[in-house]
């Protein structure tokens, strides 16, 4: 089972990403208003979805840590936060490239853009906090508290910016999209979801291994040094 996850999942994800890119670039028809430019949607929409899914994982794992104090939950939260920063970066970059030809600007203060940007910088702060705390228990607790504070913030950011200013088009759904476009989009969403899972799982395993190392050498020093001093 683990072997399938470790090797099989990344391979399947990669194959699907390539197939999805082919579908999006070559098979799907050009868009009536935006022409070829819209094809970046096949990457932008899935990464935007994952950039919201990842913080959800962090939030749930952090709540689990605060209730049960299990190290696995802490490792999952850390993995989720790193994957979250990666996907928010991808979402913001592809969004900017999409926005320039369609809206005429690289950046606008739209609720969804701003929420993802705040999430991005907030999770960078979260990861910075983790780097600066040496005590594993304190690190896990403090970062769980931080993750919950960030999670509560996201909907408030969304609504406050929505009241403040808005330009983003309404979300499309399968009924408003040509079926010849919906098919490739579904493939790409599945593909990027598998990439998300593969990255999350790999980072989680690394996190667990790091925890084992920390536990066996509580001071963080190499074992040989401890043996010499005792």
């Amino acid at each position, binding site marked *: 089972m683990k072997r399938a996850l470790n090797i099989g999942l990344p391979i399947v994800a990669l194959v699907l990403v390539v197939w999805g890119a082919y579908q999006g670039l070559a098979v799907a028809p050009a868009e009536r208003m935006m022409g070829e430019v819209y094809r970046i949607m096949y990457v932008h929409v899935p990464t935007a979805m994952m950039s919201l899914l990842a913080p959800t994982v962090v939030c749930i794992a952090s709540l689990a840590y*605060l209730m049960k104090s299990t190290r696995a939950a802490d490792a999952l939260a850390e993995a989720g936060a790193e994957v979250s920063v990666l996907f928010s970066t991808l979402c913001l970059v592809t969004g900017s490239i999409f926005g320039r030809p369609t809206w005429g600007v690289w950046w606008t203060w739209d609720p969804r853009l*701003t929420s993802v940007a*705040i999430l991005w*910088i*907030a999770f*960078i*702060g*979260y990861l*910075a*906090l983790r780097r*600066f*705390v040496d005590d594993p228990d*304190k690190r896990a*607790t*403090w970062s*769980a*508290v*931080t993750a*919950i*504070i*960030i999670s*509560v*913030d996201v909907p*408030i*950011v969304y*609504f*406050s*910016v929505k*009241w*403040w200013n808005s330009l983003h088009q309404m979300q499309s759904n399968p009924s408003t999209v040509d079926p010849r476009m919906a098919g490739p989009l579904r493939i790409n969403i599945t593909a990027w979801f598998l990439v998300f899972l593969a990255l999350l799982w790999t980072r989680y395993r690394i996190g667990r291994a790091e925890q084992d190392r920390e536990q066996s050498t509580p001071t963080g020093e190499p074992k040989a040094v401890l043996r010499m001093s005792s």
Partner: protein
Amino acid sequence: MTFVGEVLTLVAKDLRLEWRSRARINATLFFALLTLLLFSFAAGPAQALQAANAPGYLWLALLLSSVLLLGESLRIELENDSLEALRAMAVDARALFVSKALTNALFCFLLGVVLVPVAVGLYGAEVKLGFPRLVGVVALGTLAIAAPGTLYATIAVQIRARDVLLPLLLFPVLVPGLLASVRASSLIMQGDPMDQTGSWLLLLAVFDALYWILCTLMYGRVIED
């Protein structure tokens, strides 16, 4: 001792400590005034532009100086292990949080009350709907800064790189609070023909309530050993 009794005793302790030195609040006040001056240099001498941006400058100056206040207020608890001593006396962690956050909110509020007339004068702004309402926004806005600010400051003072980490953690979370405070202030200063101030104040109040409850509940975990 009841919860309220504990909170009041701790607030009195913090106020007494601050009164004895008065250095922290004085230095922060001058830092805030300096920030207001710097904003006008950055914006250029055009009076209309400065007046239009006055609410934003006011809140940024208040935010930046609040971070200094927050960091200091928790740093003094680490000196001579005062926090340890409080914990050893079995003080309720929630009372500890509420008292610290209340003292911080009070000092930020006083700072804001001094900054408002200075900003209005310096930038040539007007306050069309009157000062009392603006002071009300300052009260709600500083409550928004104080709750997550006190919790994050408690974490930040215990680690390396505290000076950079506190704003890095705090500012993203405060975005909605800052946005609502600036919008409400500018509507009060520049006039509110569409009657929108109420909805911004509601947003700010919801933000305050959420974070005061959430941070009070989680504070015990933050200071546990």
